[in-house]
């Protein structure tokens, strides 16, 4: 295992609030990378815009910090051009499921070999507390004075409905689980979603550390993530939120592997015609 410190950016001025769940996730991510012994120059972190999306600013690796909502198309393209890179698309719930919702559903269909880490704080953090797609109905926010009038988006259920090849949920406060799930997601061949419940201590006073501890449960040992109907049941269960690998379908073809330039030659398109 590498030292997770190799991913530190010396002197980085971290813009997150003290106590924010993002601090958990950044440590979990660095630990996962270290345990997988991935050198920084093999890893690209792609993000959108938001508090979560600042992640690559603080991780020594390649960085593509693009537009709000657009982490996934960028990540897919990078993987297509250079399949040798480990590509992680990392952003917030608003970025990924709101502005970027169309890319979310269609990237699942494509099934590129990328990891999608979503910091799901059930709120728009950076813009100061409006409802995100995953905010609960009725929750009062800085914009929804009378409570959110719509039902929340269920990313896990949608991913299962679209037969996503790997779907996991974690909680930023659970270090070991999160490290494990990120590692599994990176190792998984195909699109891998890790939706990480993440307390926003400033703007989401409902979904606190305690709330998540009380309202989540670990999937039991006998749970079979290859059973799609079971996964759907777990994903749509209304009592508590399941943590762990909720669904996987390892049989889906990987997008970039099917594309014309890689039929006969595995050299990344990025390097063709360059002196390597």
């Amino acid at each position: 295992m590498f030292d997770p410190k190799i991913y530190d950016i010396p002197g980085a001025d971290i813009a997150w609030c003290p106590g924010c769940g993002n601090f958990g996730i950044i440590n979990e991510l660095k630990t996962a990378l270290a345990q997988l012994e991935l050198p920084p120059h093999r890893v690209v972190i792609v993000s959108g815009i938001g508090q979560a999306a600042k992640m690559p600013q603080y991780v020594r690796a390649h960085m593509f910090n693009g537009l709000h909502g657009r982490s996934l198309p960028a990540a897919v393209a990078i993987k297509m051009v250079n399949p040798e890179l480990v590509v992680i698309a990392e952003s917030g719930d608003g970025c990924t499921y709101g502005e970027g919702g169309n890319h979310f559903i269609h990237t699942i269909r494509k099934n590129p070999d990328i990891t999608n880490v979503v910091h799901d704080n059930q709120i728009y953090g950076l813009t100061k507390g409006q409802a995100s797609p995953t905010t609960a109905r009725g929750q009062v926010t800085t914009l929804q004075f009378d409570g959110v009038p719509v039902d929340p988006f269920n990313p896990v259920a949608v991913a299962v409905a679209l037969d996503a090849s790997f779907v996991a949920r974690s909680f930023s406060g659970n270090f070991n689980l999160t490290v494990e799930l990120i590692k599994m997601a990176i190792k998984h061949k195909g699109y891998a979603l890790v939706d990480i419940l993440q307390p926003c201590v400033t703007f989401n006073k409902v979904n606190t550390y305690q709330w998540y501890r009380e309202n989540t449960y670990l999937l039991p040992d006998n749970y079979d993530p290859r059973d799609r109907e079971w996964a759907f049941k777990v994903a749509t269960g209304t009592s508590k939120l399941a943590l762990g690998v909720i669904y996987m379908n390892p049989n889906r073809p990987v997008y970039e592997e099917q594309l014309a330039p890689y039929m006969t030659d595995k050299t990344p398109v990025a390097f063709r015609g360059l002196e390597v």
Partner: protein
Amino acid sequence: MNLRRKQNGEVCMVLSGAAGQGIQTVEHVFTRIAKDSGFHVFATKEYMSRVRGGNNSTSIRISERPVKAYVDRIDILVPLNDNALERLRDRITSETIILGNEKYVRGERNALVVNFEEIAESFGNKIYENSVAIGVLSGIIGAQEEALVKHITAYFSRKSEDVVKANVNAALKGLEIGRTLGLRFELIPSQEVKSHYLMAGYEAVARGAIAGGCNFISSYPMSPATTVFTELSRLSKEYGILVDQAEDEIAAANMAIAAWYAGARALVSTSGGGFALMTEAISLAGMIETPIVVHLGQRPGPATGLPTRTEQGDLNLVLHAGHGEFPRVIYAPGNLCEAYELTARAFNIADKYQIPVFVLTDQYFLDSFYNVETMPDAKIERYVVKTDENYRRYEITESGISPRGIPGYGTGLVRVDSDEHDEYGHITESAQVRKRMVEKRLRKLKYMLEDSVPPKLFGPENYEYLLVAWGSTQLVLKEAVELLNDELKLNIALLHFSQVYPVHPSITDFIEKARKTIFFEGNATGQFANLLKLVFGIHTDERILKYDGFPFSVEEAVERILGVVGRLRREDE
């Protein structure tokens, strides 16, 4: 000067009918036969936004001389259904021959009945009709039997042998009939044309992209730009091109930028409405200084507009697309060679300056084709550097260009950021850094200007009147200018811009020499004239504009130029 009169050594044929009736088959096969028989060919089509029915037409010029522009004149019109003639009435003159099945030509002046259908049936099936028509047209112009057999055979190659044979026989029968109609349109072939290619605008753009090293295209279908996308998809195996039909245009544009970031040379092909959705991404390219090449095939807007028609209405959009301020380059090729050369160049310039580069065409340009001898040379210029540990993606340099690395090539980390950033790509809130970065990005403009493509002058050096135009109107105006100078002894030249931004400064010299300059555009507000007025402060009061969805024809150009020149002369008196 009656331009609607039959011209020597040339015949203009028009096929008209509903979508799905085989116009495209006839156009495709017949133009190839004509070219292989040694004749110059130009063809262009206009079609409705529907898959079946309605009324579409193809105009084909076959000539002993090179022909590369659309004319209104119809020497022979072939109606393929009942209402095929309706929308063409004002192009039909007393000399136009209306040729075809009796039921469609009946009652027309100069009707010439050739019952394609009946003849086809005599070979076993009405559906050989198109082959009969191809044969008849080939006969009229004096095409070669060999070429006819070759192309009919090729076209039906995926069908059974019987079907191929029946079509060939039907076509040969048509050829015989055509030859004996006595219409006197036989042309003298030229040996060299036979080795030419027939190339359409969209093919020139697609092939140019490949010549420029394009190895990635992400797009969302949209007329009239889909053909470029399709062509690159078709060639993806041969040339190693990554192809992605994106879920929407936003994905397409963000993918293309990220693909460049990762080391590809990426293109998106779209039209105005799709491009409008990409404008935020264009701004991203501006900020992260990552190249992108956009092919924008214009059609009339606003909104859905006329989806299958033509216009030059999106120059302003492309000039100002994206929030904030950053440099860009816009090409607007006027002919196939330019389309090829400039699309290739777009990739090199995008890479060199790390900016968005646009290739602006339109439906008329993309859907027209003519024979070309060869395409110009184009070479791939790559500017990617190998990074080391101290690599700074946004190193401040005198030229404004920071060496661009890609992930995995060298030991450095490539960190790009859509927020304002320092040299390492890290978020900054510093007013000083911000100012330096704005200036660095804009500094490139100076060098881009030095790299800009000068306008081309067509016609006499010592012109009295000067036409200024850009993009797809080049060849129509070139022919119009030749006619006006040759036949009416005017002294007009055409100054054509294939790079419309930044504009080459030589324009002022050209304009100073003119007694009067007339600006020519396919839009309602004179967008390029406005740009010239802004940048060079020149007078652009004389404008010939067209915005009805259809291209200028040579005749219309001639008429409108004559109108303006006549008025100017009267005013001068």
